[in-house]
């Protein structure tokens, strides 16, 4: 069995940044990627807006991926296995994968970084009522068919969900000559960026209805239309106000879920809120030597944050592999008013600063974010507006931490 200091599962932006972090520590690295190339979801995100934080310029998805890919592929210390689907990972870190060229691949690892990304919630996952005709796609699947395979999925389109992928696809399909009749959002606010609402919908006069959902779909072989209705404050559709819209395509942009099937049923402690692992500030899971980063850990809105997080994980994974991570006591990071989750969920006692990333549970204006330990204020940050769609962080000084840390919103 071949041995590597660090084995990385998934070759998207998280996997590539983890590899770079680990290599800077001198580790031997392997990346296992099931697709035919590195880059993950970025390969299909042809719009720009990536890298403003990381590179200080706006790149398209493929351009952002290419910068990392070049670095990874030119480093002889990184072995890249493509078309290699990882099937299992054991607690003593044996990784098994299959590929058409290499057959069965079995690697033993000093440490492992999970970087499998996320997948989209589908029609089944949201319990859509009606037949299952052709023409219902997740927005990301339509994005891949359009941008990688060059195939337009429909002509008359309705989109459920106003997340960024749905908004971007509304513009994409309009650019390709399709008619996007309506974008609807269950919540009274969008989780998408303002910029996308203006430049993907308003620029093309595509209507966006809030507090609205799809109640039924019609069509036998191909979708012929959808029924839509406004929802009440308990998010239940008001059926008396149901309305029919004819269309041949329904795109779903209703959320992303970390793709953690590989570790389902393992000893790795999972968070019910993020659907990812519970980690410390090195992004180490509850099983020593197994790390997690990127969308498989928690869904990110900016790829820049993915790269940053995975670099931290890769660096720490390399240190773990050579026995250079001390196991010092941990303190819990908890959440208070208004904060849905904070990550990492635990931090070690020690020196230096650590960023606590968090998401709020709804839109807030003029609140102060606080991090307190045993009631003592460690850090506060005044904000103009906080929205669930935008991940934020508050940076604290570890040496000030006395016990558990709580991140909360205060007036």
């Amino acid at each position, binding site marked *: 069995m071949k041995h590597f200091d660090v084995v990385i599962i998934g070759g998207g932006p998280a996997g590539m940044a983890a590899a770079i972090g680990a290599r800077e520590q001198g580790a031997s690295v392997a990346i296992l990627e099931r697709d035919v190339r590195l880059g993950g979801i970025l390969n299909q995100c042809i719009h*720009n807006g990536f890298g403003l934080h990381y590179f200080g310029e706006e790149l398209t998805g493929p351009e952002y991926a290419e910068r990392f890919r070049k670095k990874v592929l030119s480093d002889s210390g990184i072995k890249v296995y493509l078309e290699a689907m990882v099937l299992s990972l054991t607690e003593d870190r044996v990784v098994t994968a299959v590929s058409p060229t290499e057959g069965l691949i079995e690697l033993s690892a000093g440490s492992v970084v999970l970087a499998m990304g996320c997948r989209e919630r589908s029609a089944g996952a949201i319990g859509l009522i009606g037949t299952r005709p052709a023409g219902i796609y997740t927005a990301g699947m339509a994005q891949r068919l359009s941008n990688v395979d060059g195939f337009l999925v429909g002509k008359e389109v309705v989109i459920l969900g106003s997340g960024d992928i749905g908004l971007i696809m509304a513009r994409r399909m309009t650019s*390709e000559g399709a008619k996007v009749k309506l974008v609807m959002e269950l919540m009274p606010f969008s989780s998408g960026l*303002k910029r996308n609402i203006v430049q993907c919908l308003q620029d093309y006069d595509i209507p966006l209805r809030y507090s609205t959902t799809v109640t039924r779909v019609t069509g036998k072989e191909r979708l012929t239309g959808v029924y839509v209705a406004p929802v009440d404050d308990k998010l239940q559709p008001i059926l008396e106000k149901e309305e029919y819209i004819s269309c041949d395509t329904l795109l779903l942009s209703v959320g992303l879920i970390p793709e953690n099937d590989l570790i389902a049923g393992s000893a790795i402690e999972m968070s019910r809120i993020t659907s990812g692992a519970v980690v410390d500030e090195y992004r180490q899971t509850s099983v020593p030597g197994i790390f997690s980063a990127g969308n498989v850990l928690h869904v990110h809105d900016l790829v820049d944050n993915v790269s940053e997080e995975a670099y931290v994980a890769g660096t720490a994974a390399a240190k773990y592999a050579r026995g250079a991570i001390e196991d010092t006591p941990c303190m819990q990071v908890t959440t208070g008013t208004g904060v849905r989750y904070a990550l990492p969920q635990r931090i070690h006692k020690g020196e230096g600063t650590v960023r606590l990333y968090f998401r709020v549970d709804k839109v807030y204006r003029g609140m102060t974010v606080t991090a307190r330990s045993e009631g003592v204020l460690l850090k506060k940050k005044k904000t103009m507006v906080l929205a669930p769609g935008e991940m934020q962080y508050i940076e604290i000084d570890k040496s000030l931490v006395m016990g558990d840390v709580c991140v909360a919103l205060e007036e």
Partner: protein
Amino acid sequence: MDTTCIMCPMGCALTITEENGVVTVTGNTCPRGAKYGVSEYTDPKRMVTTLVKVRGGGVLSVKTSAPIRKTLVPAALKAAAGVLLDHSVHAGDVVLADVAGSGEDLIATADLVYTEK
């Protein structure tokens, strides 16, 4: 004209009016919003990212070398749709010069290895 400021997550609702050649922005919370409102009213620009076809099948992602006039976006998309690539290109190469008379080029955002089919 009504629009939303996109310069920060506040997303202020802006109203832009013109009287005797003077453009006024209201609804903004800070000066950045006023500046954005004026540019959206007088000379809005957009980056265009789209696809061009490759002879024999497949697509290549492209973008304009800089934002172009918003009014030229439909023409730029149409021009891109008319391209049929039959040679290899590198990311950054010009695919269509001076697209729709915008003064900007359409450039590849990924490598394409063309193989005759």
